[in-house]
């Protein structure tokens, strides 16, 4: 369980891993799992995707 930094609702996440992107079930914003213990979420960067050689 963790709090959405955008709308403060409590979200349940199954087998979370650091770096995962999850969507807030309430406000739908994309969140990044920053740490597991304690479980902390941050708003995921709006990065355009990229690729190289």
């Amino acid at each position, binding site marked *: 369980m963790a709090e959405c930094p955008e709308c403060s609702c409590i979200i349940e996440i199954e087998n979370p*891993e650091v*770096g*995962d*992107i999850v969507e807030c079930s309430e406000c739908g914003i*994309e969140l*990044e799992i920053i740490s597991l213990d304690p479980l902390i979420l941050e708003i*995921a*960067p709006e*990065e*355009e*995707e*990229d*690729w*190289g*050689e």
Partner: protein
Amino acid sequence: MIVIKIGGSLGTEVQNLAKEIAEISKKEKIIVVHGGSYETTEISKRLGKETKFVTSVSGFRSRYTDLETVQIMEMVMAGKINKELVKLLQKSGANALGLSGADGKVLLAKRKDSIKIIEDGKKKILKDDFTGKVESVNKDLITMLLEKGYLPIICPLAISPEGDIVNTDGDRAAAAIASSLSADLVVMTNVDGFLKEGKLVTELNLLQIDEAYQFADGGMKKKLLAAKEAIEQGSPRVIIARGNLDNPLENALNGKRTVISR
């Protein structure tokens, strides 16, 4: 003026092409942009560095480029492939001059220190990745070198405003260079051009590219995207043609190919 994008292989096919390029560069200004992904993976293996490929959100396969990988790419792409191409073209009579995008800020790219990827079906954030997209081209440097009779050979390792060397996609880097110079772009590949259900499509315009996209595989998707970016930003024409035949450049300019224009 023509920008020619080739792969990273140094086999017989590029030796044919080098002779043609040297010949045509006598009457037409030419810039070569090359890749090197395959050889980078090979040399990484020999150096005991495991290559990790990630898939971008819209499905493009990309090398996870940590700092050690950047240095291996400096060795393989800016070093071996770039200088072997310089040697090949010098031997064919062209005054080739090799540069990476970091040199004189030929290619300035915005580095994303975190990018979104798909891994085992999960959307994830990947950090410490030195990948980026070309944002600007030092066209004054390229033009100056062309006017003095040099043939620039550019490796798509760009530099970020913070001074980091960044891995960029060769096709899109070539597109950025071509459009900055309002030059035609010829992309060499190992098929005749864009094939729709197995049949060569000889002409495409900007509107038709999105539809063509659905029929293309990963590699061709990237080339169609690069073509679109080139034309939208000022390149008059993009040609996708086969590189592994006897006179690849002659064929690309006048033979069997896909021509994309506005």
